């Protein structure tokens, strides 16, 4: 059975609709059954921006077997009027539209209508204007799906994966937020996610917090007191995990193919390396949710919105990872 992917256009003011139009013209689309969810005029806007035209067949995906419809299935919604779409601006209307479409996709996941969600970029400012009520979309989705376990954004680029123990917090709070429990959860999450993405035994490195991994305690003791014991415990189990490794050279081990993933201690530790290696090509996987949810790591790119210049590469990679994760997830459940 092909993976059933719900594809949503993200913020209508950005490059999301154009990316969806471009993705639909890619070969990888044949690997899945795709359900478009959202406003017809938004999808048509993206097609006009991309200079492409896709025949879309309206379905009520909640009540009909949408996979059997001829052509491209569209679960049509009315979340905003064409007049309310203002290119390259964060608006309350576009944020509300984004959240309503996302809600519908999450409902479809819970009803078993689709197996995974791929979303084109959201705009955080718009979603906050519309009252998202959470720090980011991952926490919003986790609440909607009733997830109480550990969740974290995972980032991937060209076969390099990272997760992080702390994320959007002040640097001065990082050291206090690092504990063995969080390190183990972040490591288990990336291990589980990589297995689902097709790695039989992911090789994981845990990054150090301090320069030179603390240099034997001279520049910080977190490696000795917290990280080393956590890694030793996990390495004693089933996981192929090493660390703590100095963070200035750990990413070279990934680019050289010696390891698959790095568990980072703070936001910029991993993001500097990933964005350096492929600013616009990375993919974000929303880790810890009960189904695969992926998105390009880049944003709504207001500077080029509507110009027909958007690069579909990261969106394609997000789609391919979602398809692969659905297949492996099914095998995992069957086993």
């Amino acid at each position: 059975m092909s993976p059933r992917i719900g594809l949503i256009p993200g913020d209508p003011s950005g490059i999301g609709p154009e990316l969806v139009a471009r993705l639909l013209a890619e070969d990888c689309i044949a690997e899945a059954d795709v359900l478009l969810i959202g406003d017809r005029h938004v999808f048509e806007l993206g097609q006009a921006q991309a200079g492409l035209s896709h025949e879309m067949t309206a379905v009520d995906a909640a009540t009909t077997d949408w996979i059997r419809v001829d052509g491209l299935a569209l679960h049509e919604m009315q979340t905003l009027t064409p007049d309310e779409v203002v290119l390259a601006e964060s608006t309350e209307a576009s944020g509300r539209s984004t959240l309503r479409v996302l809600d519908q996709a999450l409902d479809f996941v819970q009803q078993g209508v689709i197996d995974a969600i791929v979303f084109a970029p959201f705009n955080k400012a718009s979603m906050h204007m519309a009252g998202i009520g959470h720090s980011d979309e991952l926490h919003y989705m986790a609440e909607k799906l009733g997830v109480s376990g550990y969740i974290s954004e995972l980032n991937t680029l060209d076969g390099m994966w990272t997760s992080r123990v702390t994320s959007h917090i002040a640097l001065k709070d990082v050291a206090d937020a690092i504990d063995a429990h969080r390190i183990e959860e972040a490591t288990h999450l990336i291990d589980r996610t990589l297995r689902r993405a097709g790695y039989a035994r992911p090789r994981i490195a845990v990054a150090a917090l301090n320069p030179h991994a603390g240099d034997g305690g001279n520049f910080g003791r977190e490696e000795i007191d917290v990280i080393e014991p956590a890694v030793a415990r996990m390495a004693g189990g089933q996981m192929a995990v090493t660390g703590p490794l100095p963070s200035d050279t750990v990413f070279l081990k990934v680019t050289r193919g010696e390891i698959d993933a790095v568990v980072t201690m703070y936001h910029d530790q991993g993001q500097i390396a990933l964005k350096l290696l492929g600013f616009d090509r990375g993919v974000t996987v929303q880790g810890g949710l009960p189904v695969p949810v992926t998105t390009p790591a880049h944003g709504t790119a207001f500077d080029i919105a509507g110009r027909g210049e958007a690069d579909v590469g990261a969106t394609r990679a997000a789609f391919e990872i979602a398809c692969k994760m659905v297949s492996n997830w099914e095998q995992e459940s069957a086993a």
Partner: protein
Amino acid sequence: MTRTGPIALSCGEPAGIGPEIAAKAWATLRDSCPFFWIGDPRHLPPGTPIREITAPLEALSACTDAMPVLRLPFQGSADKGQADPANAAGVIRAIETGVQLVQAGEAAALCTAPIHKKALIDGAGFAYPGHTEFLAALAGCERVVMMLASAQLRVVPATIHIALSDVPSVLSPALLRETIEITALGLQRQFGIAAPRIAVAGLNPHAGEGGAMGHEELDWINDLVRQMQSEGLAVTGPHPADTLFHAAARTRYDAAVCMYHDQALIPIKTLDFDRGVNVTLGLPFIRTSPDHGTAFDIAGSGKANPTSLIEALKLAQAMAASS
């Protein structure tokens, strides 16, 4: 004014890989980048072709045929892999000699091979935290700045070897201002960049995102950058660190001033692992060094990689030509 003369290369810890990579660097650079080695030839790999010189200028013509050596007898053993404190005085004299020659204008620049601090403490009561501080003391400088430079990127960490949890309290407007000023002056005087563009990284993720994840940017980093702009410096920021180092961003500045060690070292090592070179800014002369240690574990095995030293010598030459 262009500095002429060859580059002085100090021996460093003789039991480490310094002598071996010096000989390998000479084989690569003999026709393109004249330098002379200050040390005891007993420590060089057997069979290294050398030419003893008495004055630096002789190295300019000698370098093509053999590695020019300014001989300095060391008292300790020539064994590799373990430092002999009896060599400590020689290691220090090689550095002092290099400084004298570059300050006298006989050498165009100083390049230093790695030292082993403990051996210098044991053997000579070395009283400095490191190589750089020793050079600053010899030159009479209060404050110097470490830059890492490669063909693709120059970075300056404002704080270096301290715990990450100490970074926010050690950083101060005075420290950051001094770091930016020394960096700007160094780029002007030693890199020939008339109006250096300096990008300052934020401390917090997304540069604090308006105070949502950290306040230092709002509390003082923004103000300091604006203030220095009004003084005429081409300084920008604070920039979110994660989008400061990709190829397009790197074209917008001549050096990035970073808040902590790994913020600077992750990008340069990920981009140019063994081509990064250490440059000390703020000294009255040019000083470069390879970005690695003595590597006792492979010393004497012939496996040492000279790339960083070669890059350090080439950069010293380029800096001398543009200063």
